[in-house]
């Protein structure tokens, strides 16, 4: 099974997808329209590129600080959380799932994904 399929089987995950770092394609499954999934993948990709730039800046300031390579990010809202690790994103309904479990799963499943963002 793909990680997107695995994620969608997790409690509380309403949608999950993957995007290419170069921005020319994406795929998803779950309760989103094609247009909304495209918008989500664009926002997630932009933020991922941004936090990687920021981690590189921290690394330049303090080498081996432990931030680089950045693995992902979370935006936690009152009802939903956006979880992104590498080039995979998912939307979690907070009351139905565990952020700790989801991040742990994604970090483990995507641990060997190259961090060169190609």
């Amino acid at each position: 099974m793909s990680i997107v399929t695995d994620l969608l089987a997790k409690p509380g995950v309403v949608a999950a997808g993957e995007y290419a770092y170069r921005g020319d394609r994406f795929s998803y499954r779950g309760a989103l329209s094609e247009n909304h999934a495209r918008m989500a993948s664009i926002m997630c990709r932009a933020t991922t590129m941004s936090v990687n730039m920021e981690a590189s800046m921290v690394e330049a300031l303090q080498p081996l600080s432990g931030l680089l390579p950045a693995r992902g990010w979370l935006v936690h809202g009152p009802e939903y959380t956006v979880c992104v690790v590498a080039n995979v994103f998912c939307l979690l309904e907070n009351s139905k799932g565990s952020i700790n479990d989801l991040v742990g799963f994604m970090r483990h499943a995507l641990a060997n994904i190259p961090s060169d963002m190609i």
Partner: protein
Amino acid sequence: MTTLDDLMKLPGAMAAFEFRGSGEMLEHRIAHADRINESTLDLLAHMCAANLSIATMQARGWEKVTGMVGFYPVQQFTLIGFDWSVVVSGLQREQYKQAGKFSLPPFMGVVLANESADYEAAFAVLERKEPVQ
């Protein structure tokens, strides 16, 4: 109100800090100066202020465009690094805004070692509701 010392009690806490919306760092605590020094924490505060603002803009736009609610206001932004994560929040400021206060408390953040990070516990501490003073 949640304090830096409360945040430093979280599992794997390496540092905690307060910062303005402009990113300027105010108070801080550092437990592992070999991994996180004051200059790094200052840069992190600026990064986190920017990321919170962008996430808030995206959450607002997403809700308006899709009709899906529950993303705004952003409660926390978390950056997951290779060895550690940083979690920041300005949620307590919302309570002050809703109470009509003009003087708002600072944003708060905590750096957690990934191996022992409990993001939900960090969110709970940062979301703790206290009487508005």
